[in-house]
């Protein structure tokens, strides 16, 4: 384990110290108690079954739970949590495990609470422009169900085909349409959630305007499974835009592309999508998707908009003009929807495609104010060069949200160490530019060591008091937010 993960893992007990005979007996007894609640077939205790749940999509974090349990209803979730609080056993809620902050790694062992069986779309209400789904429905399933009713679910995380809506809410996922539409938080109207003590709460509801009481819906959104287990989500939908359009502008460098982003916004255009990729990312995505992207350019800007056809056409052509004036090598518009979809789909695969360059791919998530994007890009380049690392950068340029991604050989411990140092410096640089340490991936275990740098000690203490109010026994996702 590297210094970084030791620091992040905090008080995690290595699995080897947990598997004494007495602990095995306790685990067996716990598994029996859980089986009585959810059925034996929905409990896993074999080492191999547990090993499969040792990771999420975050590299370098790895710890198996003691038991995996698959509840089939909110009542079963409540029963499991009540039991865990009584016994002081850690519980890690998990959707598809596609998060990039080690939010669903069981650093302290205990129960992995897998919510994939709660996978029904309960309701689409075109009249109220909302949908109600169980927590384990994937983002794409929700978007498709909304689309079938002529509606749009606006949040669009890159992992949409895999990630669950519950997970999106827990991490407050962002995505490719963030510039115009915001992040998951902006669409959550109400939640059903289970507190660690087993109480079932319903926050918010079905209304756009509802200011009664503390906004617990917002508090739970982005709470990363540390305050409650979300079991049902009510989200706002929008009318499906009549038209969509997408284009690509190529630049000599990422800094040039960043300046073009600022120019686009300054020109008064706020498109749905403004994404950029540097040369290494273009090459990787092209190797996967084969779209005929120009791999000789230093960077590309992928832009897109939706709405009334005339508005879309007008905005795209305005962006085309601005990019050209900002020194674009070439600007092209996607000739049809299929081509536009292919471009967006390829962009969503930026991270995994990059792993073609080397075996260990560490992606990070920092955000700066939009007008400081070019400055941040310059700092990342400088940091990468100084540490002798390959850091490719892509991201949601329109939101100032960057994903610097370091590709190293996992057997080169020196390089892994240098990558951690480099990311520490990248986060510090983001904070120095009035930015933040995560724009959309969450804090999890991976970024907990940096959280105090962003929030300060007062807020950290308040977070812990809130955590204690929800979870007095401290069983829910320990080692993450509020720890």
């Amino acid at each position, binding site marked *: 384990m590297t210094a970084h993960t030791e620091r992040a893992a905090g008080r995690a007990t290595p699995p080897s110290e947990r598997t004494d005979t007495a602990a095995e007996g306790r685990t067996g007894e716990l598994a029996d108690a859980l089986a009585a609640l959810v059925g034996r077939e929905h409990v*896993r205790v*074999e*080492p*191999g*079954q547990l*090993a*499969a*749940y*040792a*990771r*999420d*999509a*975050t*590299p370098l974090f790895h710890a198996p739970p003691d038991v995996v349990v*698959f509840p089939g209803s909110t009542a079963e979730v409540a029963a499991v949590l009540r039991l865990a609080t009584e016994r002081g056993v850690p519980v890690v809620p998990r959707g*598809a*495990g*596609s998060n990039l902050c080690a939010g669903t790694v069981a650093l302290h062992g205990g129960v992995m609470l*897998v919510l*994939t*069986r709660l*996978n029904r779309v309960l309701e689409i209400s075109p009249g109220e422009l909302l949908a109600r789904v169980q927590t*384990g429905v*994937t983002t*794409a399933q929700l978007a498709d169900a909304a689309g079938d009713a002529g509606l749009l679910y606006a949040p669009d995380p890159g*992992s949409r*085909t*895999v990630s669950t809506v519950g997970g999106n809410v827990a991490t407050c996922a962002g995505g490719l349409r963030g510039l115009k539409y915001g992040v998951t938080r902006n669409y959550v109207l109400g939640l059903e959630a289970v507190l660690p003590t087993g109480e079932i709460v319903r926050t918010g509801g079905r209304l756009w305007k509802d200011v009664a009481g503390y906004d617990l819906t917002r508090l739970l959104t982005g709470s990363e499974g540390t305050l409650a287990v979300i079991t049902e989500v009510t989200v706002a939908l929008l009318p499906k835009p009549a038209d969509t359009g997408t284009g690509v502008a190529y630049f000599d460098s990422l800094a040039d592309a960043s300046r073009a982003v600022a120019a686009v916004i300054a020109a008064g255009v706020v498109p749905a999508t403004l994404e950029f990729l540097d040369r290494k990312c273009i090459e990787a995505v092209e*190797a*996967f998707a084969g779209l005929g992207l120009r791999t000789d350019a230093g960077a590309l800007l992928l832009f897109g908009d939706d709405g009334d056809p005339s508005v879309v056409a007008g905005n795209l052509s305005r962006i085309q003009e601005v990019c050209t004036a900002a020194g674009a090598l070439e600007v092209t518009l996607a000739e049809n929807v299929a081509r536009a979809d292919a471009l967006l789909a390829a962009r969503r*695969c930026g*991270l*995994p*495609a990059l*792993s*073609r360059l080397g*075996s*260990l*791919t560490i992606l990070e998530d920092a955000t700066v104010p939009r007008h400081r994007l070019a400055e941040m890009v310059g700092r990342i380049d400088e940091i990468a060069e100084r540490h002798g690392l390959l850091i490719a950068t892509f991201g949601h340029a329109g939101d100032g949200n960057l994903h610097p991604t370091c590709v190293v050989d*996992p057997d080169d411990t020196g390089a892994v160490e240098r990558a951690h140092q480099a990311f520490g410096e990248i986060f510090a640089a983001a904070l120095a530019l009035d930015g933040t340490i995560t724009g959309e991936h969450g804090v999890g275990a991976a970024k907990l060591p940096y959280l105090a740098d962003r929030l300060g000690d007062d807020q950290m203490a308040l977070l812990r008091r809130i955590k204690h109010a929800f979870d007095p026994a401290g069983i829910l996702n320990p080692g993450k937010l509020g720890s």
Partner: protein
Amino acid sequence: MTTEPPQPGPPAEGPGTGRGLFDKQQLDRCISCGFCLPACPTYSLTGDEASSPRGRITLMRALETGELPADDPTLAEESSYCLGCRACETVCPAGVEYGQLLEQWRDHQWSGPKRPWIVRLLTALVARPFLLRLQGLVRRHARPSGGGPADGPSLMLGCVERGLYPAVSRAALRLRPELNVPPGQGCCGALHAHNGDSATGKALAEELGRRLPGTLVTTAGGCAAHLAHHLGPDRVREFGDHLHREGHVPAGRVTVDGRPARVGLQDSCHLRNGLGVTRPPRELIAAVAEYVEVPGAGDCCGAAGTYAMLRPADSRAVLDPKLAALAEADLDFVVAVNPGCLRQLRQGLRRTGARARAVHLAELLALAEEDRT
């Protein structure tokens, strides 16, 4: 692009001895993003990470590092539960060649006494050329002939297909009489490679490559992908792909009660996911009949080589939604491009009393030759 698979060693014992089983570059390439989850038929049945491609790669890693002992029951169960359909490969942006990793995993998992007896029997049978010749005496497949120039394309008879569906090779030869049918053909080794003996699988593919000069044309998608991996994609063509490239023009149409037949397709997983061949069979069908795209045509049918024999209940669970989709589509024929899929569909359609008949692509196209309208 592909690297040499490690040679299977003696069965690993105890923790720590799994090292070297896998192509490490392939294992490392998986970054656990989970993009593969929605594509996986077993994950969609269970929702359990262990039965997903990402989870299975995590298990392989645990075997490799010794975190799990070689005899761990979940390793055995999951390596067997996987269909090997490779649908995960098509959606993997990182380009993990999961099919290769699965072969390496099964080399370990199904070595020595752990080898299922059905697998032993089948691989032993098909690896013996005289038994394959015997099949030809019992059931009349395409007879050895010299239709074209000696270095021209050769029709590979396929060890399973020549026994179960000899009419397929006869139909293929009727459509392309210029194909050579060299005598003394063996097995391509796909069966071995998919069932824990990749060394024999490779040796048999290379041996067949020596016996059949020039391009090898096969009516089995699984054989095509396996041969292409070992002999190079330029030497191997699946039959539909071959017809397509040769610009095959059908002589007639396939009709039912005077109207064009309604025909759907079941993709062969290895053809679709391994070689990316999807358009040729569809266009060939559309040229002779009314082509109907059945939802889920690209999803595994559950035949998966020996899978339907080794795990009949699981195989059926994978097939059932497909049978429902086929019934919904109201077809006259459903076309398969692989003998295992053909067997699976015929059994399933019979069991549910469906109207549609399952035929091989070559058989459907040969029907069109009869019906000259």
